[in-house]
Each structure stands twice: as structure tokens, then as C-alpha cells.
């Protein structure tokens, strides 16, 4: 079984990634390894927006870990998974920001904890709360790489969230339906 690889991008905190690795392994039931590779993502920084282009980073990670070029359609769900984690803000050109981005049924995903920190909203620093949010968003983006779309259930980590309140409200694990879909996809390669 292919492990999930975690990649520290930019100035992401090593301690945060260590904690994240353990949490993800527990929920996914898969080996999660923290890679020592530090790919250069500076080319994806937008000087005007002061954000990183998440689509570019996802493509870079795909190129590093997948054999085939990325496709628009759902790809091989059994492909190896890689999740890049960074502390800086992410965007896709048409949106003001994203918490993360993933290839649906593909290999690569990226997540940022920039907007998951309380201090960004004028609240006291709360590393534990930030970690909870990061675990949820990391599981969410990895769920997409396993072919899962957004789930209607607020109990499920695949529930869509466009602000931190949404993230706090939703559950921190896959619902039974999403877990089942993910496991069957992992086993036979279909969604």
C-alpha cells in the first residue's frame, strides 16, 4: 500500500508537520511519512497578491511524485498521495483565497495554515485549535485525492468549508459513507 507523503513547503513549522503526520496516520489508517525534500515554490508567489498560487504548487508536487502527467478527469485513486503544507496564504486566480487545493482522484494536494490561526482574526493565539483545523483541512484535501467530493453531512470532514467557523463546526473524521467510498476506491481503483 502506497504511503501518504507529507512535504514541508516554505517556512512551514517542522513541529506542526510532525504532529500532523501522527494525526493523519491515525484517521487514514495508512502509513504517513514526512519527506525531507524541500521543493522550491518561490516561483508560485504572486508579488501583487502576496499569496502562493496553489494550482502551480499542486502541479509541481504531482510532477515530483506521479509517473503520468496530470489530467482534468478523476485519475487513479490508488496513486501515491502527497500533501504539501505551508504557512503562507494560498490562492487560485479566480478566488480571493483557498485553504487548500487537491487533484480530485489524483496524487497531489496542498494545504495552508495561514488562515487557520486565531491571531489572523484578532483572537489570542491558540496552537491547539489551529492544529485541529489543519488536521481537518489536510484530511479534506487528501479525501479529494481519493476521489471524494464535498459531503452534505456537517459531521464529515469532507463537508465544504469556506471560513474557519465552518471548519470548527464540521466533524474531524470521514463519515461512514465517505470512508466506505474511499476504502472501496483504494481497493479497486474506482469511486
Amino acid at each position: 500500500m502506497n504511503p501518504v507523503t507529507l512535504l514541508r513547503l516554505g517556512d512551514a513549522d517542522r513541529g506542526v508537520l510532525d504532529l500532523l503526520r501522527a494525526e493523519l496516520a491515525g484517521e487514514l489508517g495508512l502509513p504517513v511519512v514526512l519527506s525531507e525534500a524541500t521543493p522550491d515554490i518561490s516561483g508560485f508567489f504572486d508579488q501583487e497578491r502576496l499569496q502562493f498560487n496553489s494550482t502551480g504548487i499542486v502541479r509541481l508536487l504531482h510532477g515530483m511524485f506521479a509517473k503520468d502527467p496530470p489530467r482534468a478527469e478523476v485519475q487513479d485513486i490508488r496513486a501515491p498521495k502527497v500533501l504539501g503544507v505551508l504557512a503562507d496564504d494560498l490562492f487560485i486566480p479566480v478566488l480571493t483565497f483557498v485553504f487548500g487545493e487537491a487533484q480530485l482522484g489524483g496524487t497531489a494536494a496542498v494545504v495552508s495554515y495561514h488562515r487557520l490561526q486565531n491571531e489572523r482574526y484578532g483572537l489570542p493565539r491558540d496552537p491547539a485549535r489551529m492544529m485541529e483545523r489543519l488536521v481537518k483541512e489536510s484530511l479534506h484535501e487528501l479525501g479529494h485525492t481519493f476521489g471524494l467530493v464535498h459531503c452534505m453531512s456537517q459531521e464529515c470532514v469532507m463537508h465544504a468549508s469556506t471560513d474557519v467557523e465552518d471548519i470548527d463546526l464540521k466533524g474531524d473524521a470521514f463519515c461512514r459513507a465517505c470512508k466506505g467510498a474511499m476504502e472501496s476506491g483504494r481497493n479497486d481503483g474506482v469511486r
Partner: protein
Amino acid sequence: MNKSNIGILVVDDELIVRESLTKWFHEDGYRVGAAENAAVALKKLQENGWNLMLVDIKMPGMDGIELLQRVREINKKIVVIIITAFAAVDTAVKALKEGAYDYITKPIDPDYLDHLVDKAIKQQELVLENEKLKDTVTELSAPADIIGDSEEMQKAMELVRTVAPTDTTVMIRGESGTGKELVARAIHAGSPRKFFPMVTVNCGAMTETLLESELFGHERGAFTGAQYRRKGKVELADGGTLFLDEIGNVDMKTQMDLLRVIETRQFMRVGGSEVVRSDFRVLCATNKDLEKAVREGSFREDLYYRLNVFTIWLPPLRARRGDIAKLAHFFLEKYSRAMNKPMRGFSPEAMHALKAFDWPGNVRELENAIERAMVVSPGPMIQKEHLPLDGAGPVMADGKRLEDVERSHIFQVLKECGWNVSRSAATLGIDRVTLYHKIEKYGLKRDQ
């Protein structure tokens, strides 16, 4: 909401925008398509199943506004959201005027995008649901019970179809039991007011004070027992139709009140001082000789002219004997279902008797006769002896109003006595003046 049934088409000349939005909605579970220009978008619109379009306003060739206009021509149900590079109020206003649901500026706040799309799709679902409900109401409110192939009935129904869609006041005239209320319902159902209520007031069934309160409602404490404010039928008919049944039986004071409310569409509740407005269409019905009542001064001439704008005369059943068989079978089927008693039909003798009878109580009497015959018939075939048409007497079914029974009985006695009023009065055990009053009250005529 099953999002995989909802199609979103992204139209933008920038590949990155198409890819980003396609992916965004795909992750949300929607069925997503993309087009790089208006021409491709229009081609894709030939495929069914697009609910929402996100259209960039600035594209080479046909721009977003023009595409929006074309989409509105093709399919008004598709929700179009315009994407602009910067907030230009004039273009945004233009887009909204052309029928866009809303506009968003790039870069889009993801929370706002999700909220907007969700809201637009929910509203579209409500519109579609509303259309379906309206179709269902139209279907359910269709005047299915008006049966008659005879020329007289066909002419009456043609008039119903002509006048129904208008807001014209209609007076429906005909003997008791000819189906005046059904025709009123058909007119209401065929009018743009069909989604509002048709409120019926039986003017003949109430005393003067009761009718006033029934029509106009009352305020709390207006009279003993008025513990709450109560809306009257005129107020309840707001937006719909007010059907004044047996208008010829209304007393002079209420005639005056009715005239005022019909002319102004304004009134005051009993015991109230507030002027209440109500928008209603008036339909009325009578079996009385209103012209005679006007001549005699018992019916206001101004009210008569106000009500007698368009008249539909319903023929008595004996004047359309050709419809008796069809009506008889209709009622047989209706009560067969209601009683859960399978019936095959009528014996030739029974049908002959039905066709030969005069039916002074008209269709209502025929319906009662068939209901009663079904109760007493042991088998699936109605025989002549099951029909209560023996002798000259009309059918008196249980539950029939006393007035109907009295009318039929007086009519039969008059017929038996050759319309000799003195003999008829003696037979009935009443004086001649009373009989004259009854003849007038029930609109009885020798040639009926």
C-alpha cells in the same frame, strides 16, 4: 438537493478561470462544463440539464451581456451569474436589467461564491416547484363535472370559456339544480384569479343581519357574541372571486351594501370604522325572474345593471334530454367509486324511464335519483324499479333541502291540476295568495 443532477456551465476565455471554477464546483459534487467563448457556450446549451451559468462579461467576440441576452431567449429558466474583472456599476446594472441573477467580481470570495450559487439554485428549484404546483392546481381545478354534449350546454360552455379569462361580472341563470355553482367554479378556474379563493355566499340562506356580518365580517364587540374580529366573505375573496348564489333573495338593505362594495371594492366591517379594500371578481346566480323583481321594486335596478353584465343561461335538464344518459353514467361511476360498489349500468327500461322523466329538480335531482337507486339495487345493473320515478311524483332523496322538496311538490301539484291555482291551493291545503308567493319564490312556470 442532489448536486450531481445540477449542471453548472462556466464560460470564460481564460483557461485558468475555467479550470479553477470547474474544479471548485466539481469538488462540490456539481456536474460542471466549461466553454471558452459564447459560441461554444451556445452550442453546449443545446444539451439539456444546465441549471446555472457563470459568464465572464469580457470575452473576445460575443461578450457576456450579449450571451446573456441569447441565453434568455433560448431558456429563461437558466440562472446566469455574470463575472466581472472589476466592479463596474454600469455594466453590472446592465447585466441585471438583462436578467442576470447577480454579478460577482474577480477575484471571488469563495464563501460568497458558494453562498450565491447555493441561493440561486435554491431559488430556481422554488420557481420550478411553483410552476409544477400551478400546473397541478390548473389540472385539479379543471371543471371536470360539467357534462353535456347538447347544443344548449355546448353554447353555455363556450360562453364560460369566453368570459372566464376576463374580469367581467357574470350572472348565471337557470332553474334550481342546473349546475350554476359548477359553472361559477369553471369560470373561476379558467380565470387568472384561480390561484386565489372562490368564496361562495348563499344569499338565500341567511337573515338580513346574518348576511351583512357574513359578507363584511365584524369587529370584536360589534354585537353580542362577537368575541373576536372576523373577516367577511368579501374580504376573504381578496384576489379571487366572490360568488353570490341566489342573489335574487337578498333584502333591500343588503342590496344597497352590495352595490356600494361592488362599485368601490371598499367596505367597513360590522361595528368597525376602518375602510377595508378587497380586489375580487363578482359572479352571481339566480333562478328568479330578476327583471320582474326590478319592475316590482323588490330588486334594485342599479344593482341589477351592475350584476347583469354578461349572462349565461343554463338550460333545464328536460330541454337537453340528450345529455341524460351521459350524466346518468357519470353519476353511476361517481357513486360506484364512492360506495365501492361495482356497477355495470342501466337496463334499457331504466334508461328509457330516466330519459322520459321531466326532472323538475334538474341535474341535482337526477344525481340524487341515481345515488338512491344504487343503494337499493342488489345487482350491478340499475333496473327501472330501483329508480324512484313512480307515478308523477319527483324524486325526494334523503338529505335534500326542504325548499327543493317543497318546490318539486308544488310543481307536481300544479301540473296535476292543470295550473289551476285555486284547485292546486286546495290540494296543497294553503290559500291562493300563499301559493302565488310560492310560485314566485321558486320561479315556477307552466312551460317548465
